[in-house]
């Protein structure tokens, strides 16, 4: 029996340091530890002014204190609530306009025009106007967030609807779907990759906008969110608390990226529909 030579698989990347062989969680943990060490080294060696910078230990303490007395939890919750409702409103506006655009030429024209006028406006730029229209309350913030979220969702959803494979639409009609069910059972899932992209973009814009808007908005009391928390900490010259707020934002950002990843894995990755972004 002749021997067959078996092709040797290529060396995994980073095999020289055996870095690539470690599991992902360990790699990231090690990198994080390294960053913290560098941070601490900078703090100890360079000794920057405590009014401009903080060391990891102080930040960790402020972070822990903030969660323990519930402050960080409540301001984070306030910010997330406004963000969720704002994005929800934006999504509804986007869905309505996109459905209208899918069904008629004038709808399409309206959507294109609104997008080109309103999408370039940074959320925070709209805030002073929103404060005049809606008063000095949460509605102004909701308006700003809705504006930041609606257009990315609308653009992506519209593209999603326009690029649905016509064959499966034909299949949908062939098996007897009504127009309504065609939209919900065929167009909507077919446009899901685009919808998710739109949602991720809306989330990113909304997040940045709400933190910045809270700073402009200047609410000082119990209604404040994470942006207000950070601003207040700075006012009271509690720099470790400022950093703790920023760390919270970073952690939340990572958490949501993880959640989006889970959503994608359960849906568009499972169905082989994920486009490389």
């Amino acid at each position: 029996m002749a021997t067959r030579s078996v092709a040797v698989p290529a060396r995994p990347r980073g095999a020289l340091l055996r870095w690539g062989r470690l599991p992902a969680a360990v790699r990231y943990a090690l990198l994080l530890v390294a960053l913290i060490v560098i941070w601490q080294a900078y703090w100890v060696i360079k000794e920057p002014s405590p009014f401009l910078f903080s060391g990891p230990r102080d930040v960790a303490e402020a972070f822990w204190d903030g969660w323990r007395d519930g402050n960080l939890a409540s301001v984070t919750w306030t910010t997330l609530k406004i963000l969720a409702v704002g994005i929800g409103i934006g999504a509804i506006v986007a869905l309505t306009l996109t459905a209208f655009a899918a069904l008629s030429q004038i709808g399409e024209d309206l959507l294109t025009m609104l997008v080109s006028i309103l999408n370039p406006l940074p959320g925070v730029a709209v805030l002073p106007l929103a404060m005049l229209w809606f008063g000095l309350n949460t509605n102004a913030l909701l308006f700003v967030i809705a504006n930041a979220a609606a257009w990315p969702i609308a653009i992506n959803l519209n593209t999603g609807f326009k690029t649905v494979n016509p064959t499966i639409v034909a299949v949908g009609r062939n098996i007897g779907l009504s127009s309504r069910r065609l939209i919900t059972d065929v167009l909507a899932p077919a446009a899901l990759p685009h919808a998710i992209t739109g949602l991720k973009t809306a989330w990113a814009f909304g997040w940045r906008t709400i933190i910045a808007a809270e700073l402009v908005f200047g609410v000082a009391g119990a209604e404040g969110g994470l942006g207000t928390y950070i601003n207040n900490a700075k006012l009271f010259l509690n720099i470790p608390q400022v950093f703790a707020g920023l760390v919270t934002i970073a952690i939340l950002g990572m958490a949501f990226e993880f959640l989006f990843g889970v959503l994608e894995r359960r849906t568009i990755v499972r169905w082989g529909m994920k486009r490389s972004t």
Partner: protein
Amino acid sequence: MALRTNLVRMAAAAIAAAALAVAAGAGGAAHGAPTAAAPEKLTIAYQFGVGYAPLMIIKQQRLLEKAYPGLKVEWKQLASGTPITDGIIKGDIQIGAMGTGPMLVGWARGINWKVIAPLDEADLWLMAKNPAIRTIADLRGKRIATPTATSIQAVALRKMAQAKLGNPRALDSSLISMDHPDGMQALLSGQIDAHFTSPPYQWQELGRGARVVGKSYGYFGAHTFLVTVMTQRYYDEYRPFANRFYRLVKQSIDLINKKPKTAAAILAREDATEATAAQFQRWIMRKKSLTYTTRPRGLMRTAGFMNRIGLLGKVPGSWRELVFPPVYPTRGS
């Protein structure tokens, strides 16, 4: 032998005293090493309001330049104490004028600054326009604007809440930070329900239909409103200059108090103001609610209250810890 010993002792003492005098003199001269007794450049920052009048007089009369020819003075008028604090931390601003609230917060946090010259005492009023709001209790759940969260007004509001409602945080739910001009406009247009402000805004709001809901003097007694601060390091480096600055403030205050008409005419020359000399004169003469003085009052009481409600990390042992030596003789509190 005893007389010779005494003579020797006296001679030694005289030589020692002379040496000390020389050393002190030389030390004094060598103290700011190349810069002698005055800086070459100075950035001094203040905010909006007639409470800053002593500084405006110094500015308009160019008193600093006259006292120190060759000194370049840059005056900055900023919207709140926050950029002033930042500027002092970074070293861009050497003398800053602010309320006692931000001054105490900075001191407690370790900025190592102190008051070089208080400017005035003022009764700060909480104004409301809505006829339905008559007392503190009516303010529950209503939108109240104060200057920044560290301002003395924000502190006074907590004291009022504690006194009248039992809980210093009772009115916290809709506190907004606005600077005085924005706050006045928001109150008069109905966007906010109450505005805790300062002279002259509170008087202007009174004139336009708002009413007084509370006064800070009623809760803290007569107290200092605005002060000027500098860092300890700056004071040590330019002590004679700092002392001279204190005296210039006092001199301006005297002018205001003794010759209000002259003072008002000088104040009216400020670019940023649209007020006339006549208006200024009316304002600086409302002595019941605005008194210009370099004597600090109520600092300890304010600091104690702030500490009790968690706005201040530590309290000074005495008022002297908060001010520089020129202020000591005023016998403040």
